[in-house]
């Protein structure tokens, strides 16, 4: 297995505080670069050091992401286009990511990325114009029952918190967003020490590092930055145990959410994340005893899946399916979860196979610069790379799955959300 480590990651922190991670992949034509900023949709209430509480409307981080591309005399998106590169950005609960992929003119692309993220330009006119596009985006999500259900599940787990708001905000909240809100969020979070630049794919790491250093040395940033403290789950009320909505869907959709108990510092977070993936894999994957039984009984179908979200201040898991018998799905899943300690011991013989299987999937992702970068943003919130996952995973034992039982197996912290056909 030693060969797995031929993927060598170079990890630096530059003088201004920005973290740079470089993962060269020999033989690849494309280079994929991503700036990950440690701010997301949940950062709507925060307290900078020696300052009172600041609030911004729901959806501000996502709005900012849209507007950051537009500058006084250029549009970064078009600039990437002229360089022959593709660019994109996305906002998640805890982070915002800006990225490009290219097969040439790498230096110009890297400078464009660093410059447009690090030089804001918000005007009233441009901010007002974006309201239409973001409104359409929100409406499009509203028509997708899968997304409605997921958002309702998170909102039910964390009522009265920023997690209860959709990532893009609402049609009402986006009306309130002003240039000043974008600037406030920007000033508080878009600082080098709160960002990571990841470059993955075909490139020469030494040269890229020099380009980045040169670019960063030419810019001024405030020298003493401390990330504001975000008030995310401090105000969370009791879990809302049931939520239902009727929509014009063909078949019922149901999702069970489990609110975790702990705050996870980055180092433990990775272990917890992977233990969680193994836990759900052993209990619910196709290779488990439960899957086929539920599948053959018509309780789940190919849409069945689970997901784990592990952030610094909160963690939750969810399981969902499309089914004609939502009540049976709920009681079956509840029973398996309640019984998970015994079920895990029964499946202990499978542990090593399932661990190898996850290892194989992680190795497979290393065939794709995009998969490496996406996982870095979505699962790791910028804190670790897939190579770290491989190392940590190899050290896990079945006893580590107790972490998951301790955190998630608390029925009063569970919610059940359903979207039912309106006719």
């Amino acid at each position, binding site marked *: *297995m030693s*060969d*797995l480590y031929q993927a060598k990651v170079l990890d630096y922190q530059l003088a201004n505080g920005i973290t740079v991670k470089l993962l060269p992949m*020999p*033989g*690849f*034509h*494309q280079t994929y670069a991503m700036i990950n900023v440690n701010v997301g949709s949940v950062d709507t209430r925060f307290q900078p050091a020696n300052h009172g509480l600041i609030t911004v409307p729901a959806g501000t981080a996502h709005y900012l992401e849209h507007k950051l591309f537009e500058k006084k005399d250029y549009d970064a998106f078009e600039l990437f*286009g*002229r360089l*022959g*590169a*593709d660019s994109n950005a996305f906002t998640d609960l805890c982070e915002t990511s800006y990225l490009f*992929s*290219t*097969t*040439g003119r790498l230096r110009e692309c890297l400078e464009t990325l660093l410059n447009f993220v690090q030089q804001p330009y918000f005007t009233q006119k441009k901010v007002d114009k*974006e*309201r*239409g*596009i973001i409104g*359409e*985006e929100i*409406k*499009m999500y*509203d*028509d*997708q029952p*899968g997304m409605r259900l997921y958002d309702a599940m998170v909102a039910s787990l964390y009522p009265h918190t920023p997690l209860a708001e959709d990532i893009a905000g609402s049609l009402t909240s986006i009306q309130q967003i002003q240039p000043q809100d974008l600037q406030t969020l920007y000033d508080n979070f878009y600082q080098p020490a709160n960002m990571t630049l990841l470059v993955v794919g075909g490139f020469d790491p030494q040269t890229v590092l020099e380009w980045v250093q040169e670019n960063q040395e030419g810019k001024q940033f405030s020298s003493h930055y401390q990330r504001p403290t975000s008030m995310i789950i401090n105000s969370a009320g009791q879990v809302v145990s049931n939520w239902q909505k009727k929509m*014009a869907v*063909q*078949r019922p959709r149901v999702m069970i959410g489990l609110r975790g108990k702990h705050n996870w510092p980055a180092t433990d977070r990775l272990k917890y994340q992977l233990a969680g993936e193994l836990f759900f894999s052993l209990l619910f*994957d*196709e*290779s*488990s005893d439960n*899957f*086929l039984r539920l*599948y*053959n009984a*018509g309780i789940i*179908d*190919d*849409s069945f899946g689970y997901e784990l979200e592990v952030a610094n201040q909160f963690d939750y898991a969810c399981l969902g399916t*499309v089914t*004609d018998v939502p009540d049976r799905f709920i009681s079956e899943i509840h029973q398996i979860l309640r019984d998970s300690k015994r079920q895990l011991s029964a499946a202990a013989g*499978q542990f090593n*196979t*399932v661990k*190898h*299987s996850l*290892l*194989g*999937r992680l*190795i*497979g992702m*290393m*065939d*794709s*610069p995009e998969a490496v970068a996406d996982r870095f943003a979505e699962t790791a919130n910028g804190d670790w790379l897939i190579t770290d996952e491989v190392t940590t995973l190899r050290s896990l034992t079945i006893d580590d799955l107790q972490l998951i039982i301790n955190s998630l197996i608390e029925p009063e912290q569970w919610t059940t959300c359903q979207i039912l056909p309106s006719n």
Partner: protein
Amino acid sequence: MDYQLAKGVKLHIIPSSQFRLTNIVINFSAMQTTNNATARHLLANVLETSCQKYPTQTLLARRLDALFGAVVSANVARVGQIHTLRMRAQVVNDRQAQTALLMPLINLLRELVFRPLMNEKGFDAATVAVQKKSLAGSLAAINDDKQFVAYQRLAQLFYDQTSPMYYPSYGTSSDLDSLNGGSLVSAYRSLRDEDQVDIFVLGEVNTKKVRQAFAKWPFRDRQPLAAIADYHQSFHHRLRQQLDSDDIEQAKLDLAYHLPVYYRDPGYYPGLVMNGLLGGTPYSKLFLNVREKESLAYYADSQLRAFSGHVVIETGISANNYQRVRSLIEQQIRQLQAGQFTSEQLEEVKQSLITSYRVGLDNPLNIIEHRLVNELSGHPELFNVPEAVGLVTKQEVVAVAKQLKLQAVYYLGGDVDE
């Protein structure tokens, strides 16, 4: 490197040390008919979940887990009028894993293809019943994806009702109801013994060993496909238009333009660039003028259907903007036809297409797809795509754009003022 395993059965080995995984695709091709898609889709789902050696999904999944999380799946897709059933497999290569995984995986695939869960009476009834129910559920759930629903209804407006293309490649609920064990057996036998087969193996492999392993598979000779993928339909002067009312937040307006430009025709690369300028890239007229400048849509894009002679435009809009968006789209087409785009825009789009092509070289499934499409379209030779795109001129783009003729318009959403 290509090897003939039997008449109509080819093995294509693509050695590469770029990837940690080895990818295998076994592609079965037959002409789509008005009624074969559903049975083939159900067959794909049965074949990917069971075989005589691993009769349940659980046992099969455990076997795959033991092969370092190897993945096997089967699905259906269409290339022009050719219906394809593909079995795909991925596994960590033997050097990375430091253990032999490829040969056991090839053996497992042989079990899935040649020893499915059936006896002289037919496929295992319980397995078929479960997969049938599951497919029925997936087909019903498609209706919840409004963007896809609109696209599908546009396709049905565009295609003549007598054409096999009128029927979706993934099948229909009504066909599924009428399927029985017997129809599944005949679908399997014709797949196994009559379909053209193309097997692709891409990765760091020992070519000789791979060849020897597949040479043992008991394929019979069969006729290779006589026709190629291209589907031709003549332009009808009556515009096919349909407006459906639906209680959704965001309305969908989709258009289909007739364009007789086919894969690797002289007009193909100009057609690709034209589509890139229209709505196929983020630097396109639809994206910049409909979405960005006018803020009228969250998505607005176009696709060149180079195996069936048309261009599709999809938009997500507010119902009250129907007329404005529609005239704006038609205005973008007229501008293309009048050559109203700058040489910078042309270069940008060409660059973007070349970049996507190069990026595709980093994706094993994309490389295989490209090779498969070349096989099925009767153009198996490799081709310098960046060069061909680079040589496209403004005149060629305009000439292709002038052939665009609006054939079908589909709208889904709240009431509009006509």
